């Protein structure tokens, strides 16, 4: 039937169309040339490579998968959150992509139903959906709202604050598995095969290990180890295996180990010298911390500001050796605005006007940074109000290129 659709539509069009369209030749008289085959749909190449990147956009309501080496778009999946901008999860073992999303039966109103939508990683076709309790939480930064645990069987979804719980989804059996109460703790950080961590409102950390059925096999809570009011930990952490690194508002790095008897603070060191602190250097942004695990290099977006500026763009990237707790490099953040304005202004990439614009436009900094985990790592940078991605060599900070037209707004970015 499907193959007949074109003929059918043409016939209908013919039946309804004007009596004659004399200005256009009839095709049988036209010499025949090789036609392009109709209906071809591409697939994502089998190996994504280490430099692939998901880039979310709130206005277009999707996340685009890019090849970070050349800026090519490989495909996209939709995300119905009106305020999300979140990036999807990718299972390499099951070769699937997961999007947690709600839909309303009238677009923006009516009955809400929450789903995990499952895409095939190769075809990006929707291959299934799992209905969830209608409780999924939404937050502007998109960070730590859901977590794919390491054995890629369970997806953990943070629920609305008044639910005080997480939803566990069994991706293998494609079903809702469990709801686990997490009173007073929030955000979800994957920490192992079937374990994840959370941060709590009293300054403690929580570690939960799942049973085979997705219920909580073990729940362990640390003593409070930070002050949620005076110097809270930013929730935008960087993962290091079973540990997570969090920077506090005042610029102290906290290494939190989630395994063991209970979660514990295993190291706390300053990202700033006293002098830098006196000069008002602060950490900040929406995804402001990134770790390259093999080289133990930590990338931190910093800016000069005051308390309350913790969501402002970073003006520099400070690079640390996490073994020695020492800053070893400082990267400049390139100006991303020209690449954003170029298509708006209709300038050619090689035009004088564009070169002038690029030369004179100062950097506005970046709100988000992630790093690839291979031996030739790339840093990906994004400003919250500019839909482009700056690509840097993570080893020396060299600005390699900029991925243009990566959305209208700065949603979450994530290495698949």
């Amino acid at each position, binding site marked *: 039937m499907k193959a007949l659709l074109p003929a059918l539509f043409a016939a209908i069009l013919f039946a309804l169309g004007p009596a004659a369209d004399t200005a256009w030749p009839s095709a049988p008289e036209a010499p025949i040339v090789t036609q392009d085959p109709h209906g071809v749909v591409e697939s994502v190449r089998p190996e994504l490579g280490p430099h692939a990147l998901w880039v979310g956009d*709130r*206005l277009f309501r999707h996340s685009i998968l890019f090849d970070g080496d050349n800026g090519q778009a490989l495909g996209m999946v939709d995300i119905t959150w*009106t*305020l*999300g*901008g979140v990036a999807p999860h990718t299972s390499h073992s099951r070769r699937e992509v997961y999007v947690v999303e*709600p839909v*309303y039966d009238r677009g*923006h*109103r*009516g009955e*809400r139903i929450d789903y995990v939508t499952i895409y095939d990683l190769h075809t990006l076709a929707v291959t299934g959906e799992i209905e969830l309790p209608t409780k999924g*939480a*939404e*937050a*502007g*930064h*998109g960070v*730590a709202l859901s977590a794919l645990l390491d054995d890629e069987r369970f997806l953990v979804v943070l629920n*609305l*604050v*008044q639910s005080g719980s997480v939803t566990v989804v069994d991706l293998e059996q494609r079903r809702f598995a469990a709801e686990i109460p997490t009173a007073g*703790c*929030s*955000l979800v950080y994957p920490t192992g095969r079937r374990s994840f961590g*959370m*941060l*709590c*409102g009293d300054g403690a950390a929580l570690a939960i290990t799942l049973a085979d059925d997705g219920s909580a096999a073990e729940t362990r809570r640390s003593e409070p180890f930070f002050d*949620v*009011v*005076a110097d*809270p*930990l*930013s*929730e935008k952490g960087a993962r290091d295996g079973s540990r997570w690194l969090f920077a506090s508002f005042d610029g102290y790095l906290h290494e939190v180990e989630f395994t063991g008897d209970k979660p514990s603070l295993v190291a706390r060191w300053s990202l700033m010298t006293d002098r830098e602190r006196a000069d008002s250097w602060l950490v900040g942004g929406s995804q402001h911390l990134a770790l390259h695990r093999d080289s133990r290099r930590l990338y931190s977006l910093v800016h000069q*500001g*005051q*308390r*309350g*500026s*913790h*969501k*402002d*763009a970073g*003006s520099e990237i400070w690079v640390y050796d996490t073994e020695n707790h020492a800053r070893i490099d400082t990267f400049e953040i390139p100006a991303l605005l020209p690449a954003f304005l170029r298509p708006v202004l209709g300038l050619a990439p090689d035009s004088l006007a564009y070169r*002038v614009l690029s030369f*004179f*436009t*100062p950097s*506005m*900094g970046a709100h988000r940074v992630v790093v690839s985990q291979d031996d030739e790592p790339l840093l990906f940078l994004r400003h*919250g*109000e*500019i*839909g482009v991605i700056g690509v840097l060599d993570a080893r020396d900070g060299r600005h390699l290129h900029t991925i243009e037209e990566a959305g*209208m*707004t*700065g*949603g979450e970015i994530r290495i698949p």
Partner: protein
Amino acid sequence: MSRLDRWMENSSRALARRSGRRGFLARLGRVIAGGTVTGVAALPLLPVARGQASDESHGSRAAAPPEDIQGPEGDPNHCDYWRNCAIDGFLCGCCGGSSTSCPPGTEMSPVTWIGTCRNPLDKKDYLIWYNDCCGRNPCGRCFCNRNEGERPVYHPYRNNDINWCAGAESQVYNCSAAMIIGLAVEGQPEK
């Protein structure tokens, strides 16, 4: 230095200065959080008090904060409006509502996050509810993001990233209002 240089630099400075506060390209996705809680004992009481206040309308139990302020700090549709010190979203006053009311056809969420903002006239600190208006697509006008005293998601009553339309019938976020709850005994930690 040519005009272009200066203009670029000026506008860039302006951007840097205001990037945390305003900028319409980021105005989506800022999910708006709220908490009703200012203290343990007060928890179950405050929202009810608000409900009563609603019925009494502009009751005169006590003095309202002085609002006759010159400049942007006195302009409810400006990011620098004194009450907006921890707002993150579109100002309802630019969307068909006002700084204390929702646009036509939306619903005010019963739960919100709070801020502690200082009134520049009486120098007093006030507790502010940032009530979201919900059930219609994002307004898209007058985006502001100020984070004085704002805290991460795990401290929800002070977090403005969470979508606080969570308490409303449709959790689609339209805009945010900034309403007085009462006087704060202590200032916010940033002051």
